């Protein structure tokens, strides 16, 4: 019933679109009071940069017929201007137009997550340049490799990770989350640490609101990836609810045991960790499995956060731990306890499944993370040598909101 599918997909698109202000609040609230606006601009401007690139050549690079049939990257000229899709094919359902819109949001949210690694010290022009290059050179190829199915009938060739390696990744654990997490780490390494001392989050209610909105959007992200109003959609919506919930428990339990106290930021982070974990696995685990995915993702991400502190890298808002590590945990969960009765039909090795899935997932994870790290580092390094990435020390002390954007986030004057 294509029209019914479209009805849900339109709603799912809208849900995902709210993830942008959600992410902006989630990240903005975690920063100190003088670099918030800069973060909001990095997050929201991702839509501007992605929209333009996607219309010009992004859609082609991601969903186009593989260039040379190699499964590496789509032909960048195939869908210039999305002009092909302007005409109604009268399928009654979602057409190229819809998927273009949906995938713009996927690409934009990925680069928006990367922004978190640059909080508080990057020039805004450099960020725009970086994000355009990164989308083109990192996201578009990986998305092609992971998301695009080949169509033997029409001779259309898709991505090699999807079609040759046959990874299982329900809604973007690799191309979106691991990719973003690793890239944020690489960018943070090139940028170096912030000058000023670490800040406490300036507004935790804002963080909770952001997390709640992100969760809401995730139902569209995962549910829309079911491509319709079908059994799969309700399946992944339930598992997403359960994993987010259990993510809270996993994170807060570790906190409680280690620090004696469960925290609000931990609760919000745990929910997101659980959701990251379920993104690749939502269709492969059963309800109890979904709770376990959330529990594991929440707990491991919580542990990963402190490891990071020791490494001394200023991945400011922990994108690597939350999205990188969280994504890996999700994939490992598929490998371990996928339920063969679930829509994906994979048997986890704990339930006697064969080891085939192991190397497929390993290849996918390794390729994604290595490619993302190396390319991101190279792009950031190159930009740093040429246009320079970082603001001056003085600007950093004064804060990017005032120095880069000539604004103050909060003004309390009562005049």
């Amino acid at each position, binding site marked *: 019933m294509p029209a019914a599918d479209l009805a849900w997909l339109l709603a799912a698109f809208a849900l995902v679109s709210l993830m942008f202000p959600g992410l902006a609040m989630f990240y903005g609230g975690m920063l100190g009071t003088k670099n918030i606006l800069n973060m909001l601009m990095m997050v929201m401007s991702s839509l501007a940069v992605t929209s333009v690139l996607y219309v010009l050549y992004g859609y082609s690079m991601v969903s186009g017929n593989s260039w040379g049939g190699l499964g590496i990257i789509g032909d960048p000229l195939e869908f210039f201007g999305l002009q092909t899709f302007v005409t109604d094919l009268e399928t009654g359902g979602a057409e190229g137009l819809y998927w273009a819109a949906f995938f713009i949001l996927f690409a934009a949210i990925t680069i928006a997550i990367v922004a978190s690694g640059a909080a508080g010290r990057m020039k805004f022009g450099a960020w725009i340049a970086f994000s355009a290059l990164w989308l083109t050179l990192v996201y578009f190829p990986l998305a092609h490799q992971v998301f695009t199915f080949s169509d033997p009938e029409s001779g259309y060739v898709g991505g090699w990770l999807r079609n040759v390696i046959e990874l299982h990744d329900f809604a973007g654990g690799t191309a979106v989350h691991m990719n973003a997490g690793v890239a944020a780490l690489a960018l943070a390494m090139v940028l170096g640490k912030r000058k000023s001392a670490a800040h406490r989050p300036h507004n935790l209610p804002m963080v909770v609101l952001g997390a709640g909105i992100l969760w809401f959007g995730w139902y569209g992200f995962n549910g829309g990836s079911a491509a319709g109003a079908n059994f799969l959609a309700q399946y992944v919506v339930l598992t997403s609810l359960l994993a987010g919930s259990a993510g809270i428990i996993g994170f807060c339990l570790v906190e409680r045991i280690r620090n004696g106290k469960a*925290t609000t930021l931990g609760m919000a982070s745990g929910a997101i960790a659980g959701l990251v974990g379920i993104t690749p696995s939502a269709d492969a685990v059963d309800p109890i499995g979904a709770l376990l995915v959330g529990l594991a993702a929440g707990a491991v991400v919580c542990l990963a*956060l*402190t490891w990071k*502190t020791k490494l001394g890298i200023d991945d400011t808002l922990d994108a690597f731990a939350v999205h990188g590590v969280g994504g890996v945990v999700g994939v490992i969960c598929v490998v371990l306890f996928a339920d063969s009765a679930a829509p994906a039909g994979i048997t986890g090795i704990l339930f006697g499944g064969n080891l085939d899935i192991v190397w497929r997932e390993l290849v996918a994870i390794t390729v994604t993370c290595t490619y993302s790290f190396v390319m991101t580092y190279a792009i950031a390094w190159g930009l740093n040598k040429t246009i320079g990435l970082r603001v001056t020390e003085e600007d950093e002390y004064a804060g990017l909101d005032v120095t880069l954007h000539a604004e103050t986030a909060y003004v309390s004057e009562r005049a």
Partner: protein
Amino acid sequence: MKLITAIIQPHRLDAVHEALSARHVNGLTVTEVSGYGAQKGHSEIYRGAEYNIAFRPKVRIDVVVTEDEADATIQIIVDAAYTGKIGDGKVWATEVSEIVRVRTGERGVTAV
């Protein structure tokens, strides 16, 4: 005239205010501040990282009174702010050489 400055626990503000009003102290100014003293800070935890927060929220009261009201005013504040626990705060006095009421231009004791 004297300027009495008191740093007190935030939840004692109402009590101090009432005590001073009862004694016909006609005006005072309140500032939200933070401080440390015998009462050390506390630690907070964000994503596993512990922050030692040196300063605790306090309230600062400034009130200008005539010379002969000064001691009594200090005592009223001390009594009303008292809880007996560490962190109760300090009250101190400094000399005011001149005071003017903006609305009327009155100076000195009548302006207090």
